[in-house]
């Protein structure tokens, strides 16, 4: 993963990005090590082989990229307002992904771990509800756009 291949948006509390390159969880998790912090909580979401009993061959993610970046930026700002955290990074992958490949990484650094856990979980839940990214599941017997998680 090269950071220069990522469409990025910076905010005062971190940054978000979209890329078709494979994601490096460790690199993202360690983007920020603020001196006032002692913990970073990182969510690594990846492609599951089985969804609702069907076997996935691979996934394809597409996105309304300009709006998705703005929405991810808003999530960062809202999380920074609601939780006592220092920095947030959200990177989502686009294009074709194989089983086990990382689709999204959300990393939250905080002075105290409780806030990092809470913010990270809120961010992934809200990202799945709001950010215009779309997952197509390709099965052995067909393909379909995922219905997503209900809000």
């Amino acid at each position: 993963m090269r950071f220069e291949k990522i469409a990025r948006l910076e905010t005062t509390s971190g940054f978000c990005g979209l890329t078709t390159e494979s994601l490096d969880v460790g690199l993202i998790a360690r983007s920020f090590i603020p001196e006032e912090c002692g913990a970073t909580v990182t969510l690594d979401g990846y492609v599951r082989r089985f969804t609702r009993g069907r076997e996935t061959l691979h996934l394809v993610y597409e996105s309304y990229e300009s709006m998705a970046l703005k929405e991810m930026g808003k999530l960062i700002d809202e999380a920074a307002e609601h939780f006592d955290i220092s920095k947030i990074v959200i990177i989502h992958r686009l294009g074709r992904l194989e089983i086990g490949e990382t689709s999204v990484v959300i990393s939250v650094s905080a002075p105290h771990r409780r806030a990092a856990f809470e913010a990270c979980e809120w961010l992934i839940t809200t990202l799945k509800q709001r950010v215009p990214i779309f997952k197509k599941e390709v099965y052995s017997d067909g393909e379909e756009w995922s219905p997503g998680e209900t809000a």
Partner: protein
Amino acid sequence: MELHLTVLFFAAAADASGLRSRPVRLQKGATVADVLSFVRAEYPALGSQRLLTAVNEEYAPGDRLLVEWDEIALFTPVSGG
């Protein structure tokens, strides 16, 4: 007077319309709901599926009044993550 609008389609909405984007002209005073009615009539394959709407990269409700050169995006519920 007519408004020059652009409509963007994503994911299932793009598959159903067969398009990624198209220009649309509607009368001044048109809303997001009018765009939805227009595209549902033009592309019956969209069926009754729920569509989310954004104007100029921000979510917008059906009663949002459109202005010249607005860009309206249509997509089914998101499924990132």
